[in-house]
């Protein structure tokens, strides 16, 4: 389990998707994507928007993963050196909270956009996938 990742010195978690092992943060972000996809499927329904309520279990999972953005071990050990990642993460967390307090397609897309802005800086590869979260009219 302690192999791969980056620089051969990371604690990586073995999994089905990545034969090199994934960092904790990579798994957190994958979970956030899955949570967001599930959220998207709920807010497509206008009733959910009207009630301004998502299933509590889903919000619980999403919030749990959001809270790990600042502590999970990253693939690149220097990620948090200059504070840029933290700023992006805070922006994403803030817009996520704004969305969960006030469910709307616009707020959801703002949240997705924040996610993409961070990836534009740190990891371009997954943007193609994140783009699929946008709610398009």
């Amino acid at each position, binding site marked *: 389990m302690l192999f*791969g*990742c*980056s620089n051969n010195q990371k604690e990586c978690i073995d999994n089905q*998707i*990545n*034969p*090199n092992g*994934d*960092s904790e943060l*990579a798994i957190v972000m994958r979970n956030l994507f899955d949570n967001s996809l599930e959220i998207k499927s709920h807010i497509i329904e206008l009733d959910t928007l009207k009630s301004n309520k998502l299933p509590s279990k889903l919000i619980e999972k999403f919030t749990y993963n959001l809270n790990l953005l600042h502590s999970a071990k990253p*693939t*690149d050990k220097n990620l948090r050196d200059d504070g840029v990642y933290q700023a992006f993460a805070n922006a994403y967390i803030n817009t996520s909270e704004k969305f969960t307090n006030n469910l709307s397609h616009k707020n959801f897309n703002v949240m997705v956009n924040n996610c993409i802005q961070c990836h*534009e800086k740190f*990891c*371009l*590869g*997954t943007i*193609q*996938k994140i783009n*699929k979260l946008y709610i398009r009219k």
Partner: protein
Amino acid sequence: MKKSIYIILSCLIFSCSNQSKQVQIFGNQDMTEDGKITTKELLQTLSVQDSAFVKVEAVINSICQKKGCWMYVDLDDNNEMLVRFKDYGFFVPMEASGDTAIIEGLAKVETLSVEWLKHLKEDANAPQEEIDAITEPETIYSISEATGVMIY
């Protein structure tokens, strides 16, 4: 007699182990090598059409050294092809450079931005001077959403 059987068995075992290749499949687990084409055939195809859904056999030149999320494969003496994986849904072993792969997906010609080119160099642990030297977008062959990769 016993000795002869032993020699024959040893030869059989040796020849088997010598020929057997460990095949690893990433992504589409139902992928087979049926219908695979060569890199020469791929280049011919892309010289007359914009894109083509292919299964192409090629040698891996380099792989993302951060997490195995992309690889360059050899097309000919002058060309490589960048392969990325659909929906970031699977990765390849970072130590597989030099191995042969069959890649399934839509092959095309695309232009990569400076940001992307720099990012790929960073992932490959290239020296900073090499990264800084990138100032122009580049047109490349790519499979940007490979659905399966077989490596042996």
